[in-house]
């Protein structure tokens, strides 16, 4: 007899109600008391710009590149750009001698006007080099500003610690 863990209420038919109940008055009074009680209860409102919300680590904010020991993890394989349903990512690969890896992205751009925060890039990346951060405040005044280059995308592993741990647990 339970639906969604709630006790099923007996059905109330109009013919069973007394005249007093049919007059709506008891129900209206009940409702008025309920709304009055709400006035005295604490408020839910968050004063947004002053009171910033920090999302939990499962939140998919803007995608960022992971920076480890001063360089990005990305090896410019282009998988994220391939999987991106919104075609928001552009990677230009280049070769390198001095780094531990052979390839690195010479240019890495995400068009934040295109990105739909699906998180596919993060899933596709073999190096865990692109992850979703917890930043959600994206404001631009023109289209050029919306294309984030490497300088805006790089974030250190310390900054992304929570997200990386979350990924380790849930993958």
């Amino acid at each position: 007899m339970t639906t969604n863990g709630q006790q099923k209420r007996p059905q109330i038919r109009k013919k069973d109600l007394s005249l007093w109940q049919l007059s709506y008055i008891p129900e209206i009074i009940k409702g008025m008391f309920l709304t009055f009680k709400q006035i005295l209860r604490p408020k839910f409102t968050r004063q947004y710009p002053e009171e910033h919300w920090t999302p939990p680590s499962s939140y998919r904010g803007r995608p960022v590149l992971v920076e480890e020991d001063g360089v990005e993890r990305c090896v410019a394989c282009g998988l994220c750009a391939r999987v991106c349903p919104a075609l928001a990512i552009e990677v230009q690969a280049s070769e390198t001698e001095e780094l531990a890896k052979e390839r690195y992205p010479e240019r890495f751009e995400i068009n934040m006007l295109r990105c739909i925060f699906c998180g596919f890039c993060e899933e596709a990346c073999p190096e865990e080099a692109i992850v979703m951060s917890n930043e959600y405040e994206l404001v631009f005044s023109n289209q050029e500003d919306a294309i984030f280059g490497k300088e805006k995308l790089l974030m250190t592993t310390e900054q992304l610690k929570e997200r990386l741990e979350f990924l380790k647990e849930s993958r």
Partner: protein
Amino acid sequence: MEFFIISVIKIVIVLLIILTVVANLVYVERKVSAAIQNRIGPNRVGPWGLLQSPADVLKLFIKEDIVPSTANPFIHSLAPVISISVALVTFAVVPFGGSVELFGHQVKLMIADVNIGVLYILALTSLGVYGVTLSGWSSNNKYSLLGGLRAAAQLISYELSLGLSIIGVVMISGSLELDRIVEMQSGFQWNAFLTPIGFITFIVASFAETNRLPFDLPEAEPELVGGYHTEYSGMKFGTFFLAEYANMITASSLIVTLFLGGWQFPFLETFGLPAMMATVVQVLTFVTKVAFVLFFFIWIRWTIPRFRYDQLMNLGWKVMLPLALVNLVITGGLILAGLF
């Protein structure tokens, strides 16, 4: 001449007060509704958001005034004027205090001391329909028209029970003068206690007359876009908006005057206050009572959902009208029995 000057002064003062209260009532409504929904409400403009209403009015003045090309421009502009003036003019006969001795003149604290105050109110509230109906018709838009028609039907239906429930009060006090009706309710002989059924029917009818929830069918947003004022913008829309709140104030002060003892502070004469003080107390009593009724209006709005149109009509004709008639019979019987 003297009478003329005193009247003009009274009109200016009362009008200014009412318009200020109207603007701030919007703010109060938003705050109360926010509190009921566990929100904070407007708090950005000025301290505690108190300047929200002036900011809104300013915005409405700056906005473009759009008149639909197929609308009747004259009536389209006339309708909001009718709405707001009816709402404000009704207040003219409401006494908000006894009479005072000011600079050697005996001044009654009401604008127009007409001896048929009750009839004047009934006449003017029926005029209010024109504002709504004409705005709906002149906009040449089907939603506006439907809203206007609904308003006409609703207001006419509830006018009857409104009038009938006042008659009980008139029978008890034996006068159509509002001043006299208030004087009769000294102590706790409030008409609300003498004719409780009339009180309830009057309150319900005034909710319908002011187009407030649960009877705001003329502007039911989910069905009619915006109802009769769909095609209005800028300050013309603002006028309708203010008219709704002005109507609320008028309706509340009528409820207070007719049923809740008006400016009477129970047993004030036994305190032996000087005449000036007594008047101040009376005016404050009136204001406080009106404030309580206004809060009640807002409180109801955020508690009870909107009626369906057929329910509204059923309630009006099959419940409210018979109740008002029963009230008349009971009141008549009690008067015959010599109880009041």
